[in-house]
């Protein structure tokens, strides 16, 4: 590993002033679970590390009906996974965490670190996008709130300026008759998904008509990939097998998946179809339960 200067601010304000001083030469480390692997290979050679792991004010999980869920950027994956309120209100989020890597990673890795790393194969961004979550960023000019969906720019590139800090993930309360699900294709538990899907479905309880659907796929493009055309197929209709199949098919045509040792482009396309179908069906099922 290459040498670097190390800063460990204790508050968000302090962190911002360090970042400002470093003028773009500071790299934020949170849990560092992905970053350190890259640094050990000398793939990533930051001059300065701003380690925000010690900013305890950003380590919280709060919920209110009005505000929804507020996850401090420093919350570990384990904290999210085990949070009673997450389990009760957003079970899909807890399930997602259960399949995110392994215990050791979840115990040290943070939500903030994960969502800012910008890996299109990561699970949390996909579910935050379907949940219509927002990321609260602070910078020298003050606060800025961006939609999770708009945050991802390219492979490992996100909408975070060099002097900004992600403070909080804000997840709105779910409306009634809404179901959310997340699943990914793993050969082994905890694998990075060969393909993954997060889906939110809201239905009209009396007619069964789908009022809203949000579908995001992971590891099929250079960012988390929202398949709006698949959503369109479902919205305004009573979802059945045929529609699910169609939504899946559309998704498989629209994505631009990579090809690697875990799966070819062709395979990923078909898996996108399967997972859109499967996970939507699961979300739909949950929407029907959540009266």
């Amino acid at each position, binding site marked *: *590993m*290459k*040498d*670097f*200067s*190390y800063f*460990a601010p204790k508050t968000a304000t302090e962190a911002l002033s360090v970042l400002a001083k470093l003028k773009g030469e500071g790299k934020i*480390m949170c849990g*560092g*679970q992905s970053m*350190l*692997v890259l640094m*050990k*290979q000398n793939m990533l050679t930051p*001059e300065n*590390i701003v*380690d925000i*792991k*010690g900013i305890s004010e950003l380590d919280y999980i709060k919920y209110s009906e009005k505000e929804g869920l507020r996850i401090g950027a420093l919350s570990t994956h*384990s904290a999210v996974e085990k949070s009673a309120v997450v389990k009760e209100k957003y079970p899909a989020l807890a399930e997602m965490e*259960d399949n995110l*890597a*392994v*215990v*050791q*990673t979840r*115990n*040290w890795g943070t939500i903030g670190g994960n969502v800012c790393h910008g890996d299109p194969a990561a699970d949390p961004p996909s579910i935050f996008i379907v949940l219509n979550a927002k990321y609260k960023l602070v910078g020298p000019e003050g606060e800025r709130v961006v939609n999770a969906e708009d945050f991802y720019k390219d492979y490992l590139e996100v909408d975070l300026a060099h002097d900004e800090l992600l403070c909080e993930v804000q997840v709105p309360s779910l409306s009634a008759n809404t179901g959310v699900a997340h699943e990914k294709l793993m050969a082994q*538990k*905890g694998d990075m998904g060969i393909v993954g899907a997060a889906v939110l479905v809201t239905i009209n309880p009396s007619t069964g008509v789908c009022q809203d659907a949000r579908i995001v796929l992971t590891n099929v493009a250079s960012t988390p990939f929202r398949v709006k055309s698949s959503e369109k197929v479902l919205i305004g209709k009573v979802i059945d097998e045929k529609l699910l199949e169609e939504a899946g098919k559309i998704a498989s045509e629209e994505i631009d998946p990579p090809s690697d040792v875990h799966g070819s482009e062709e395979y990923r396309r078909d898996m996108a179809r399967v997972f859109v179908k499967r996970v939507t069906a699961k979300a739909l099922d949950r929407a029907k339960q959540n009266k």
Partner: protein
Amino acid sequence: MKDELKDLKFKVNGKKIELKVNPKILLLELLREELKLTGTRTGCEVSACGACTVNLDGKAVRACSILAVQVNGHEVVTIEGVADGEKLHPIQEAMVNHGAIECGFCTSGMVMSARALLLENPRATREDIKKAIQGNMCADSGYVKYVEAIEMAAKVIQGK
């Protein structure tokens, strides 16, 4: 080196440690090379094998994926700190008696993952145990006997 050394104060196996470290030193390197606690093993460089698992404030983490400076103010327990003097911890005892150990290279990590699990949840089920050691690879004793030994230790800890 790029920068001056950083102060580091933390507890290892109940002992207070104060020293200065290069910020790029990993916790694993600190333990093995500075503190000579070689029971924590180096297996892979990609955070995959779990051989370097230690307990940080009671939780299982990988010493290879944490900077040494990051444990400032925290408490670390390594495999050397698990037994009570000569007396083995119930997890260790069960692994020895049940024949879970072969080459032993993954054992330290297995014990540390199991210890963290049973600290948090002494009533852990087989499912919980599998989940807790999913991050610990083993090449030769496999997982069956480890899982069973941890089940046995859980019973001992619960006083059953």
